[in-house]
């Protein structure tokens, strides 16, 4: 099918974009990589009268790594995140999540902001941001504000973003994740490489001393995709492995916590009970991998 008729706008500045959003509000949709909106418009599930194409907003296409933080603009493509040496060296969870999104054609065009704006609970970046306690930066004609990822995702595809607001980028503090003693892993279970995951786990582990014979987990992060109606941070799983070296027992406790916390919706190929089991298993595997990466040479990550 073809989309319903719409008026096309192509602003070149943030100011122009937010003015258009303010004018057309719920009658407008932002378009960047157009990897999701195009499909639902072609099926006429969405029929916005105004499309605001933000591909010319160069000011929101950046990756800035400083001593204290990593900042990524919302117009950065999955492919750029996947290949970023700076991100691989500092927050490898981002490139790991990016390289597993759909297929190459989607990754070439899809953007960070599009994924966060869509807020599908199975999405990769929403889960990464939740695991890493990231902040979102949004702006409108009324000014800019910062929203913690933990407050941004509210319900299924429902976020704190106002209909007149543009996501300009995200930032993540580097302080909890010193590269020389942190390991991260993004593991997905999916029926086929290019589809959405059944369950994904995003984890990070910081140890006290990677060279110790039994490095202690100082801090752990666990977030799951598609295990609830929003990205699911499992603090009970984090608590069950913190403060001691990783063991089979603590891993099992973390997996059990993930199973308890998961409230998945059954799907055609995976019922809710199976998805809860997967939530536990992928939490276990992902934490194990993160710990291995935290305690071995960092160059392979």
């Amino acid at each position: 099918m073809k989309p319903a008729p719409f008026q096309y706008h192509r602003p070149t500045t943030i100011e122009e974009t937010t003015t258009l959003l303010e004018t057309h509000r719920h009658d407008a949709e932002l378009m960047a990589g157009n990897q999701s909106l195009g499909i639902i418009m072609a099926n006429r599930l969405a029929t916005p009268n105004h499309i605001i194409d933000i591909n010319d907003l160069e000011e929101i296409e950046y990756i800035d790594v400083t001593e204290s933080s990593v900042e990524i603009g919302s117009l950065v493509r999955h492919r750029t995140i996947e290949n970023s040496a700076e991100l691989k060296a500092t927050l490898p969870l981002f490139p790991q999540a990016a390289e597993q999104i759909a297929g190459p054609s989607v990754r070439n065009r899809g953007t960070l902001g599009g994924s966060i704006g869509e807020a599908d609970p199975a999405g990769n970046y929403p889960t990464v941001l939740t695991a890493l306690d990231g902040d979102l930066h949004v702006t409108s004609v009324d000014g800019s504000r910062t929203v913690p990822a933990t407050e941004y995702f509210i319900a299924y595809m429902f976020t704190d973003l106002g209909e007149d607001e543009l996501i300009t980028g995200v930032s993540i503090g580097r302080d909890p994740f010193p590269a020389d003693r942190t390991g991260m892993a993004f593991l997905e279970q999916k029926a086929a490489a290019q589809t959405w995951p059944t369950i994904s786990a995003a984890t990070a582990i910081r140890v006290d001393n990677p060279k110790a014979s039994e490095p202690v987990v100082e801090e752990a992060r666990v977030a799951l995709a598609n295990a609830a109606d929003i990205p699911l941070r499992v603090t009970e799983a984090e608590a069950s492995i913190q403060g001691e070296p990783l063991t089979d027992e603590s891993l099992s406790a973390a997996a059990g916590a993930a199973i308890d916390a998961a409230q998945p919706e059954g799907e055609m190929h995976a019922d809710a009970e199976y998805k809860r089991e997967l939530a536990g298993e992928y939490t276990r595997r992902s934490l194990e991998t993160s710990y291995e990466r935290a305690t071995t040479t960092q160059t392979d990550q």
Partner: protein
Amino acid sequence: MMEFEGEFTSNHSREELWNYFTDPDILTACAPGCDEIVMESPSELAAVISVGVGSVKPTFDVDMVVTQADEPETLRMEVGGNATRNSFDAVAEMNLHSNGDDTTTAHWSAQTNVSGLIASMGQRALGSVSTRLVNNFFEDLEAKADEGVSAESQLQAKEGAEASIDD
């Protein structure tokens, strides 16, 4: 048929809250996605409401009939909405319980039949979003009451009306 329910606790008495829940101007200001509410009679309201999931957000022409208004306890209405390729019918009820300490708990429930494209989102997605939207509505209404915005009860039950929904 889909069923939704929830509750909300307010720091205001139910007598006070009743005025807010039955003032169309307050409802217009607090209802999610609501552009306008026209009061056609003390029992009948017409509204234009744009709500949805993600970028799927049809604009509904909504008709509401108050079928029960037992001040300050029970408000029940029958609601129908039509949008391009989408429609819904619903019966919504709210009960205000006084907690004996000047706080009130509002229990709400709705049974609804949804058809068209939005029905394909499924109960999980619609339930997740509806519950959140209703909570937003209560929070906004509570904020109005906190600010002391004046509210005047204008709704009453339609005589002989009974809310029902087909299975």
